[in-house]
């Protein structure tokens, strides 16, 4: 009933490789950008200053209540208007993902910082450390270690989410499988292969996360 013989090396190179590359690149770039932007948002929210915390809170909660598909559609529609010149679907995807993921990463960073026991903060202060020193030497090193697993898990989710860029016709991994399936008349087999592909990649990643977690965990 199912026939996977159509899936040759040539098909892989012709249809899949480009999409795989794009999905990975999009994941990497938006993780990086999202982390930077997200950390800024988190620090704004933790600053205790209303004029910083409030916009950041609105942004984060707003982004988190809209589906990524809609965010993609919005950015696809609006970004060219805003920046005044056309950009491709790929670049739109990158901008959208950074903006979108920042909201999620900021929550991770915030939780990471808040996970540090008050006693640790007191201990740093009691040794005479300034706010900045305490953050840099005591809180952030622990916070980053604490949040690494959630952070990497989110990155895996992000990688899966790249499959949604089909709505703005960017060419991701899934897209490659879809087109290959349609053009070579084996759409069902192609979906199964896509599932296997994603599973292998994401499963290995999450397995690696577990290993890493055991390695960097603070001995308690």
């Amino acid at each position, binding site marked *: 009933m199912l026939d996977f013989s159509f899936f040759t090396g040539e098909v892989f190179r012709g249809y899949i490789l480009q999409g795989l590359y794009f999905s990975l690149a999009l994941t990497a770039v938006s993780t990086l950008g999202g982390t930077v932007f997200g950390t800024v948002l988190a620090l704004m929210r933790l600053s205790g200053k209303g004029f910083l915390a409030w916009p950041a809170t609105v942004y984060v909660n707003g982004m988190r209540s809209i589906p990524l598909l809609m965010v993609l559609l919005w950015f696809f529609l609006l970004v060219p208007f805003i920046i005044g010149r056309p950009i491709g679907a790929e670049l739109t995807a990158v901008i959208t993902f950074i903006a979108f993921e920042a909201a999620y990463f900021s929550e991770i960073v915030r939780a990471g910082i808040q996970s540090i026991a008050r006693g640790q903060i007191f201990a740093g202060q009691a040794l005479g450390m300034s706010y900045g020193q305490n953050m840099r030497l005591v809180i952030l090193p622990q916070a980053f270690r604490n949040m690494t697993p959630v952070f990497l898990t989110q990155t895996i989710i992000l990688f899966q989410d790249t499959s949604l860029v089909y709505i703005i016709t960017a060419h991701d991994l899934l897209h490659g499988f879809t087109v290959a399936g349609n053009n070579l008349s084996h759409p069902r087999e192609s979906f199964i292969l896509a599932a296997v592909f994603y599973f292998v990649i994401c*499963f290995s990643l999450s397995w690696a996360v577990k290993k890493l977690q055991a390695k960097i965990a603070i001995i308690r």
Partner: protein
Amino acid sequence: MALDWQVFCQDTIDKTVVKGCFGTGGATGTQTYLDWLLQAWGQTIIVAGLSLIVALVVGAIIGTIRTLPDNPWLARIGNWWVELFRNIPLLVQIFLWYHVVPVLIPAFAKTPKLALVVFGLGLFTSARVAEQLRAGIQALPRGQRYAGMALGFTTLQYYRYVLLPMAFRIIIPPLTSEAMNIFKNSSVAFAVSITELTFFAQQAGEETARGIEIYMAVTVLYVISAFAINRIMAFIEKRSRVPGLVASTGGGGH
């Protein structure tokens, strides 16, 4: 760019503006974009609501069996379930349910598309609910399990009376984000022709060429839905709050 909200009062066929903005409805009656928008919202709510039920029920079972003592096989099945359903993108899973499963398992061929989407979204989310429930159960002090056992409860009983009630309370915050996620993720259902909000955004945006207005309306409905879920869960959290106990929180994911 001027916004033209009248587009929602247009008839979906002849594009004339209908007085009162609502069509006559019915199979052969007229329909405005507003009617359609609300219908699409209904579809979103139905898909998300049913999927949430599936996710909670299946997630509770899977999450529980992953923590059972002395039953490595059940735990293993539970672990694989979680790995399987969370390591494949939702969109791919929905395609599989829609296009592949009915061919492999003929019994599914006559299943309504809504049910297939609900399976897809529900089981995808069940993996995440299961993961949270497992974490919730494991976050309880080990002594709670021992205390239940020491009183003579059977495994089933101490899960039912001791562990699960507390575990579910602990995971209300992450469950809230899961419930909100399910609403958002239901947008993926449009890929298999569920006429929900994102489908509406695409189709009506195309037909009327008033993308901004249409997207805005749809976005607002998503935000309202998310907010409503959030309030409902806050209400549940409040109702189930244990006197004298401070709640802890979790987070992450979408």
